[in-house]
């Protein structure tokens, strides 16, 4: 009888230990996911800020390195190029996929124009929808420079990251 009791006691202690491990690992998992999310956000924000120094987007105007400035004409050209190379699965798209992965980058002019007309004041720079449902949205205010009219407008770059 005593032996049976001992067996049961050890068995229940083991159950408690196992449950403790399970709970701890669940807790760790959610903490790690949160860390991963923050790391991913900061990495994408850093990359988005670097977009303004990409040769294919940077403004060719003096002092433009002081703020996030994208060339309006380059924006349209690059967006079309990435879309075309995506259809052909060529080097061009693969190059940008390596940098941007499963994400969507859109630029919407806020001032002065705000009609959300594609090619005029709204551009989809890159789009590769991921299979995940969860997304993070990051907004980055930018200036757009039109080298023909030599005017700077205000826009918001929106990044959607798919998990």
């Amino acid at each position, binding site marked *: 009888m005593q*032996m049976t009791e001992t067996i049961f006691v050890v068995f229940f202690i083991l159950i408690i230990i196992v449950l403790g491990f399970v709970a701890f690992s669940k807790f760790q998992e959610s903490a790690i996911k949160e860390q991963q999310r923050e790391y991913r956000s900061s990495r994408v924000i850093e990359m988005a800020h670097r977009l303004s120094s990409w*040769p294919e987007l940077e403004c060719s105007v003096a002092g433009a390195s002081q703020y996030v400035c994208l060339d309006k004409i*380059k924006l349209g*050209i690059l967006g079309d*190029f990435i879309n075309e190379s995506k259809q052909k699965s060529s080097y061009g798209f693969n*190059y940008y996929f390596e940098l941007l992965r499963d994400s969507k980058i859109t630029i919407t002019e806020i001032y002065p124009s705000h009609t959300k007309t594609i090619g005029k004041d709204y551009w989809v720079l890159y789009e590769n929808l991921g299979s995940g449902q969860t997304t993070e949205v990051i907004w980055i205010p930018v200036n757009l420079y039109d080298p023909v009219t030599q005017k700077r407008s205000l826009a918001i770059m929106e990044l959607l990251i798919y998990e």
Partner: protein
Amino acid sequence: MLLKRKKQENKVIKNKKGFAIQFSWLFVLIGGAVILAFFFALIKDVGHESEVESYSDLTKELDNLLSISSASRDTQKTVLFEEKINFVYDGTSRYYVEGSNIHREYNYNVIFSPFELKGRELIIKTLVFEAPFKVTPVLYLSNRDIEFVFSGSSSALNAVYTFMPDNLTTTYTDDIESYPDDDFFHTVFVVNESSLLTILEEFRKPEGRVYAVVVSSGSGTVVEYGKLSFYHYNPSSGLFVYDGESPFLGSETLLGGVISHDKNLYDSNLKKLMQRLELLSGLHLERVKHYYEHVPFAVCKQNYDGQPESARNYLEDIRTYSGEEVSLDNFMILYAAITDLRILNNYLITTECPFIY
């Protein structure tokens, strides 16, 4: 009778107790062995995981270093890094810390490095390749355990020497034959004529650590394009063995050839550079076409798409010849188009016309 019965009962009870005591010892022994085995397995697992984690941390550290360096322009940094790094190109560009099975691909970043790097520190220099617009950042990886020995005299050699990262071990010699062996991890002789590459009298164990790069300018004193010939030293024959030649375009690739001193790695990075140049020149070309259609001033339009020479012609040449096979002739044409485009853009900056880049 009663006493006998009681005695029998006590005997049974004693036997049962004895049996129970033996059994509980066995139970404790088995239980203890299981728990010990569990903990041993856990320790072994943790030990293996920590080793994997350590290599993973080193690889991440290297990734971060390279990533941060790519974002800077015209900078140089020296960081402590004591592990050996291997760089491989076999269709895919990869690097890994020796001993680790974590390989990192870098198929789009241009990193000129030797195929193996071992020492106490890592020297990372960043330049931006321009042709004439910004193309891509270029990284150069080396350390003080690699010795660069310059011999001979030419404007190309002077240009390389000027661009070499600071704090690298660089020396000059008039006599390669009696150059002393200071047992560096690699010794690279950088010369302007292959006739300067003689037998090495003073080198004790030169297997796998002595190399040479012969720099030949494209034409006269021009150092913007030319040819690099790669050699490795064969101690049994006492000769420098020819590994092949590749062209260079701009001081960035010239420096890259010397830092790499490996034809295979150099070619892979040159190819990435040319692919990127082809992509960007195509984008600039579209932009110039847009200017031609939308800029109202005729005096500006002729610079974008006028005859006989215009931005469009130059950009088309750059796009065409960067997309073709790398050769000295193609690089000569590229160099001409790049120079012309630079002159045109510098002129446009002085006018009211939108710049090309």
